[in-house]
């Protein structure tokens, strides 16, 4: 069991490396269309075959990884930052700010599944930044509730009372006593939220609501492969496996961190 998180970290490092260096090292261009080689099967020249416009699928997966991973990561960090700040400000104290933020978070959580992401993208329009914003908004309540819950229970502990009795202000208690205790749970949450964002981003692209083509994202590559699914299944299998393995790596890391930070959940 202990080895699995390391497998996850290994998988993630591999994907990050491929996304960072792959587009520079692989000689084929992700945008160059070749009408003489539409729907080509895997070959030494195109290890993952070519797509509906004769573009090299491997080049598109490599560059798409950069964009998809970047979107998921940026959205996770955005949601984490917003949720953390909101949660610390509210602190579960029943103040006006707490009441307003909790209501807002409840309202956002009332949208089932990825409906909120879908609507925000429809309102903001297609694009990488819009997708990041939509994902970040939908993820914020998760981090907010986590932070608020922990902050609330930590603020009620005796050592915080003791610190306050010694004259520590809120501005000292929050970063020094509350924040360090939040690190583990937030990291666990962030890893699994990032995995979920990867899948949602791919689904958005699949529905034609993500980053607009011809920019490759993993979702766009899979969407391009859909039309020829029954005859050229490899065009969908390779990119899908890459996406799934990345999400799997994030899940394994999240599980490993959970075991590490919360021994009861084992």
């Amino acid at each position: 069991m202990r080895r699995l998180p390391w497998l996850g970290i290994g998988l993630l490092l591999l994907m990050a490396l491929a996304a960072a260096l792959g587009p520079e090292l692989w000689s084929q261009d992700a945008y160059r269309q070749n009408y003489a080689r539409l729907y080509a099967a895997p070959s030494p020249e195109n290890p993952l075959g070519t797509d509906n416009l004769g573009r090299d699928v491997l080049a598109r997966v490599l560059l798409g990884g950069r964009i998809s991973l970047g979107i998921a990561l940026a959205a996770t960090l955005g949601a984490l930052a917003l949720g953390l700040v909101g949660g610390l400000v509210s602190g579960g104290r029943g103040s006006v700010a707490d009441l307003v933020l909790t209501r807002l978070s409840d309202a956002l959580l009332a949208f089932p599944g990825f409906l909120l992401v879908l609507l925000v993208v429809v309102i903001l329009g297609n694009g990488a930044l819009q997708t990041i914003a939509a994902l970040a908004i939908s993820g914020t309540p998760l981090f907010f509730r986590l932070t608020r819950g922990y902050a609330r229970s930590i603020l009620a502990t005796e050592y915080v009372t003791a610190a306050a009795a010694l004259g520590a202000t809120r501005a000292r208690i929050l970063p020094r006593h509350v924040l360090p205790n939040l690190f583990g749970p937030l990291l666990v949450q962030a890893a699994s939220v990032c995995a979920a964002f990867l899948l949602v981003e791919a689904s958005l692209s699949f529905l034609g609501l993500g980053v607009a083509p011809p920019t490759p994202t993993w979702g766009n590559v899979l969407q391009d492969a859909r039309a020829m699914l029954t005859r050229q299944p490899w065009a969908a299998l390779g990119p899908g496996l890459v996406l799934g393995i990345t999400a799997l790596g994030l899940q394994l890391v999240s599980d490993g961190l959970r075991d590490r930070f919360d021994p009861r959940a084992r």
Partner: protein
Amino acid sequence: MLRYLLSQSASLLITMLLVIAMVFFGMRLLPGDPAQIRAGLDATPQQVESTRRALGLDRPLAGQFVAYLGGLLQGDLGRSWRQNQPVTVIIASRLPVTLLLAGCAYLLSLLLGFGLGILAGSLPGSGWDRLVRGYTTVGLSFPEFWIAFLLILVFSVNLGWFPLLGYPADAPLPTRLMHLALPALTLALPRSAQLARLTRALLIGERTADYVRTARSKGLSVLAVTRHITVNTLPGTFPLAALELGGLLTGVIIAEQVFSLPGLGQLLLGAIGARDYAIVQGITLLAILVFTAVNWLADLAQAAADPRIRYS
């Protein structure tokens, strides 16, 4: 309990109002002038203005919102600008496919999720347990539409067990179910993985309880002990089971798109493409209403089934 229910209902009402306001004003942020769209691109400014008045869009936003709320209370979701029909009528015409699909998917995910979770949770460390644990991790790592691709390739293309795409709305139920089998399985797999994971964890946590040791030491069979544990832990899965149903509400959009099923999801995507906002708004509110109601019921059911949970 009654007091809890009342305060809970009040807070639910506030949340719902906030959500309705968010959706209503969010839709007004969208680019494009509905009056212009409705009147047609070659309409004169006078025609556009009269259309605007007819749609009530010339009134202040707050007034429009109040009128919309009033309509909602009477079950009126507005009219589609494109099809010139009440949104409720359009939604009702698409509802049967989506309901049948979501129902089948949900049933499948509960059966698979509880079945696998109980199997793994009552035999921790066994080969079965490892298998289920692998399934729960892998099942959550792939997008639904890609799982659908795999199912199509294996069961429709290679084995030919199920029809490829489409939905014969007038065919007898068994034929329609054959068309819904793969979409339902697509949606059920990731959800059952999540449910199995939680069920397993709850079961394993309960195994160390005193009454389990007593039951074992007095010689009860493994099956009987498992039954006791399961009955005691299942209420803990209700909230997740409700969340899963919420995920299904958007999952059907993907499944209907992959398998070309003429349901609510296709209606929503079409309405988004055509900027028919009354329909987008209507479907959104319906989904939120169902989701909120289900979550609320799950909480109540959990409290009713588990005497340790008492709301006050």
